């Protein structure tokens, strides 16, 4: 069963098409890796799921619910981290989560649970504007994990983290489906990173879906077309490059 499904989802800004005829299938209980270079349309797609921007055409269903009819019902099920972390600078990390907790109507313990999970417990009394980039990212992640929602949408969650932090957060994301029976949609521009987290992969370039399936399927397909499969990053670059060539050398 698919938790998130899109049909010919398209978003254009004037004559620029950010997302074009996208049809995604994100299975329930999986970690779905959303891969593509900067500006491929990953964030735009995720923003559409959250109702932050409106599709130009096409539809999507989340847990059987349709946007915009069931907007609030959809948002009740999603925890999200989009682009740069969004928060209130004049409040502490704990107070920021407290606000989200109140809106979601969760028990008081949820805030500490989330802080514990992302390793921010000892900095919870510090003002959010005084956080380092990595701490802000962790705060955003805590906001997404608050209340253990059935769907998580995470846009480049390891941005700004140090190697230890990256490893820690990857392991956390990897463990989420078993821990909370949730579905995770996570984006990245590194195939090597997605490989470590995701069960399913979708590759996006210039708003078009180049590939959707498991990592093994991707490797098989690439081998058949003569791409280097021993080095994942090179394979990804070759794939993107071929697509760019097809579009007349546009980058």
């Amino acid at each position, binding site marked *: 069963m698919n938790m998130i499904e899109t049909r010919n989802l398209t978003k254009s800004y004037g004559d620029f098409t950010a997302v074009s005829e996208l049809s995604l299938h994100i299975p329930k209980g999986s970690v779905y890796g959303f891969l593509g270079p900067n500006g491929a349309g990953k964030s735009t797609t995720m923003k559409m799921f959250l109702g932050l921007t409106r599709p130009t055409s096409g539809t999507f269903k989340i847990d059987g619910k349709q946007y915009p009819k069931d907007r609030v019902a959809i948002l009740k099920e999603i925890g999200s981290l989009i682009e740069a972390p969004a928060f209130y*600078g004049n409040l502490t990390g704990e107070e920021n989560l407290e606000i989200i907790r*109140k*809106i979601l109507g969760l028990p008081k313990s949820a805030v500490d649970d989330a802080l514990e999970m992302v390793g921010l417990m000892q900095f919870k009394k510090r003002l959010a504007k005084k956080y380092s980039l990595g701490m802000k990212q962790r705060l955003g992640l805590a906001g997404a994990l608050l209340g253990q929602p059935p769907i998580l949408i995470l846009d480049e969650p390891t941005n700004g983290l140090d190697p230890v932090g990256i490893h820690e957060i990857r392991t956390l994301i990897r463990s989420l489906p078993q821990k909370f029976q949730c579905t995770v949609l996570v984006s990245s521009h590194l195939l090597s990173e997605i490989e470590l987290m995701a069960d399913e992969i979708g590759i996006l370039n210039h708003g078009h879906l180049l590939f959707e399936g498991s990592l093994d399927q991707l490797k098989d397909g690439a081998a058949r077309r003569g791409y280097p499969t021993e080095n994942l990053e090179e394979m990804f670059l070759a794939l993107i490059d071929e697509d760019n060539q097809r579009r007349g050398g546009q980058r």
Partner: protein
Amino acid sequence: MNFGIEWAKMKRSGFVPAFLAGGALGAFVPVIQMAVRSENDTGFLGKPLEILLEANWSMIAMLNVMLIVAGACMMYHIEYEERGIQKIRTLPTKEWHLTAGKFLILMIASFGALVLETVGLGGCGIYWFEISEDFFTELLKNMGYVMVLTLPTVIIMLMIASWFQNMWISLGIGVLCVFTATMRQTDNGLLSLFPFAMPFQTVYEANVNDLIAAAAEVIAFAMIGWGIEKIRKKTV
């Protein structure tokens, strides 16, 4: 609507101290005025409150309107500064809950300033004038009148502040509107229905029609704001 959430967001933003300081400043306006030129003012014929309001109200009202302008700008500045509002929009809540919460807080804050100023006027009455029994009823009546007349300013300024992510644009428009309101003296017609000009009226100038107009404006602005919010959602 959740008043508590909006209240929690205003922590450490300087919002409450600003309104307390503004209210205190407004309360001192008549005191200073009386102390400097009491011999002129007490000599006039007429009701003490009328003399006091005549001499001070335009200045106090101006302070209040500017407080509302600055307060509304601040409320949305903290939303936009680190994109807090974007997080709220991804949560299962309706945007008008946020707006209504902010309206309540700004209303209460400006009422607080008005109460302080009323105390200041009352003090001046007791100290410098021989007051009759109806002084305090009229003083309270004035406060009530102005409270109602303040509401259109509160709602429209919040709307302006919510439309612009750069605080100085909202502030610039707010200041422009205050300026337009100060021209009321030269033009007493339609301009006195201008939201920013309404709080400049006192109980001696305003009548029941003005209260009805204020209520109508609040409803009208709320509906306009709701409509614009609908359009914004459609165009993002």
